[in-house]
């Protein structure tokens, strides 16, 4: 215990003297919480649309007006020839082309309508796909209005969609709890691992190992400062989410901090295991980038796990962030309790146990 305090005193002196880490603690949560939610959004706006109007009817004009009025679309071109618009699409100016055929309104009244052709640029699959979908919705809405104008039934009221827990379907609200997890992965898993390998690189570990200091105490003294930093940064991030986006957890803070503790333990274990197997910082960095990529892309941070193929879903079962992200989103948006999320907490506990056991086993082999 006395030795632990001596080592902690040394670690904190080094961290405070370090030009980088104290600034990181402030800048990191600010950037992640203030910039990422705006740029990492899946809401597609300002889709560039070209309308090829060969009909020149009241119906087609109404549709053009609708597109112009919408925040989602920017009307780039209104032409009569599909080829002209296609050229603009190929040039990249236009994302979606809507072609309204000749005599469309007449045929609509006649009961067997001509087809409207929608052409989307699939290079940016997200923008093209969503753009085409939004256009279809807009066209259907316009038809419904036209029909009701003529005294038809109000088919636009056929559906009522309600998004529970995130009523406006704000992508940010789904993103923010997950972004906090990135902070913890970097601060509590990767920084202590880099620090440990740093001692190998400077050779100081050789001097320490020749003293009575045990390896367990030594490693613990490396982790504790980063655990404290991790929780400090998590708290700052939650405060920012509340101040800037008005997003406060519906569930209890205790549930969040308990999950964070388990998660931080498992990330530390992973970090130390990697550090034990590496002798240089570059090695640690590369292995960690590998894990970061997998965590970001496969843990449900960006793409929902349910939409992955079965084999990929199986792999995600072995990723600790998956469970923590699920907990964070549920507690933040739905207010789910610890008891309801029990399987996720148990999974995180198991990871914390296994990864730390692995860390202990790999460093015993070093002597």
């Amino acid at each position, binding site marked *: 215990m006395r030795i632990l305090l001596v080592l902690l005193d040394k670690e904190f*002196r080094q961290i405070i*003297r370090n030009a980088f880490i104290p600034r990181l603690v402030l800048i990191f949560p600010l950037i992640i919480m203030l910039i990422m939610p705006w740029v990492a959004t899946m809401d597609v706006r300002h889709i560039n649309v070209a309308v090829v109007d060969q009909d020149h009817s009241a119906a087609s004009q109404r549709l053009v007006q609708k597109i112009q009025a919408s925040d989602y679309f920017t009307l780039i071109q209104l032409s009569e020839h599909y080829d002209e618009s296609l050229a603009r699409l190929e040039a990249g100016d236009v994302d979606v082309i809507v072609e309204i055929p000749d005599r469309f309104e007449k045929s609509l009244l006649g009961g067997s309508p001509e087809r409207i052709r929608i052409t989307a640029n699939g290079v940016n699959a997200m923008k093209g796909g969503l753009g085409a979908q939004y256009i279809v919705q807009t066209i259907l809405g316009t038809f419904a209005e036209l029909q009701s104008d003529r005294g038809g039934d109000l088919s636009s009221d056929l559906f009522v969609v309600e998004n529970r827990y995130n009523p406006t379907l704000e992508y940010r609200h789904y993103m923010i709890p997950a972004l906090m997890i990135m902070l913890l992965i970097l601060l509590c898993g990767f920084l202590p691992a880099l620090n440990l390998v740093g001692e190998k690189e400077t*050779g100081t570990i*050789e*001097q320490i190992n020749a003293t009575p200091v045990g390896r367990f105490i030594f490693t613990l003294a490396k982790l504790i400062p980063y655990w404290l930093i991790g929780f400090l940064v998590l708290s700052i991030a939650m405060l920012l989410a509340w101040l800037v986006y008005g997003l406060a957890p519906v569930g209890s803070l205790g549930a969040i901090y308990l999950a964070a503790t388990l998660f931080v333990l498992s990330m530390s274990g992973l970090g130390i295991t990697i550090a034990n197997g590496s002798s240089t910082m570059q090695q640690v960095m590369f292995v960690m980038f590998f894990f970061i990529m997998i965590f970001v892309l496969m843990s449900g941070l960006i793409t929902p796990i349910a939409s992955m193929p079965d084999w990929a879903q199986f792999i995600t079962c072995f990723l600790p962030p998956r469970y923590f992200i699920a907990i964070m989103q549920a507690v933040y948006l739905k207010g789910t309790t610890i008891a309801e999320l029990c399987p996720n907490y148990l999974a995180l506990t198991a990871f914390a146990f296994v990864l730390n056991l692995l860390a202990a086993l790999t460093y015993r082999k070093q002597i």
Partner: protein
Amino acid sequence: MIAHTHPYPAIEVKALSKSYGEVRALDGISFEVGRGELFGLIGPDGAGKTTLFRLLTTLIAPDQGSASVDGLDILADYRRIRQRVGYMPGRFSLYPDLTVEENLAFFAALFDVKVRDNYDLIAPIYRQIEPFRTRRTDKLSGGMKQKLALCCALIHRPSVLFLDEPTTGVDAVSRNEFWDILFNLKAKGISILISTPYMDEANCCDRVALINEGKILEINTPQAIVEGFGETLYALSGEDMFGLLEAARRDKEVRRCYPFGETHHLLTSPGFDPRRFAEALTATGFCGVSVRPVEAGIEDVFIKRMGNG
């Protein structure tokens, strides 16, 4: 030379071996270092000196053989060994981002001692770096770093001190100062195992072990090692030194010829006549040829022993 107040020698090594994969770093070496003895390990780079230090300071485990430090087994009692040895690795291994006094206080605290408790032991060394005590360690000069590292290795008053090439890369003045410090420590009863690639430093040790390719060639006092050279050594010099080296190596009566400082040293066969040899060289066109007997040094012993395998 060896104090007999303690029942155990400071270091006892028995048939110790250690391999790294295919490379046999240490090959069954045995030796003993007495209490209060200043024992030198002399050998070229890659001889296995650092491996031996890492074994004795319990950083690695041996493949075969056994060793004890202060009467404690390096495997069974490694924790107690760590309490009572001081180790200065070959590479500077203090925290570069801590100050001089922070480093010293940190290592003192790890051994649960106060700097002032053992200040008398380090005072002659620490006084020289004390003016820089608030300076970060990475801003110190090479000689000052060595002195600080020695202070940190001494702060818990170890009974055995391990110094792995402490004078490598240090200027001649600082090297002399360093050896004076070691004589002081020896006078205070600390047993010291020191390694060096500099043959001239061997004369400062009570006894030395010549080590090469993981094997000990000879253990003795520096004087006895030199006396054991057992033949006359000749120094050859002249104007065309490179030509002389080649010519001497072609001569049947010269067993070995190697450059040594400003001359070439010759190991010869029985019946070698230096005058006839010099005349023969002059006759083939060399100018200013001189062949005279010289006293062998430890380096000559080393080269001779390495040549004999």
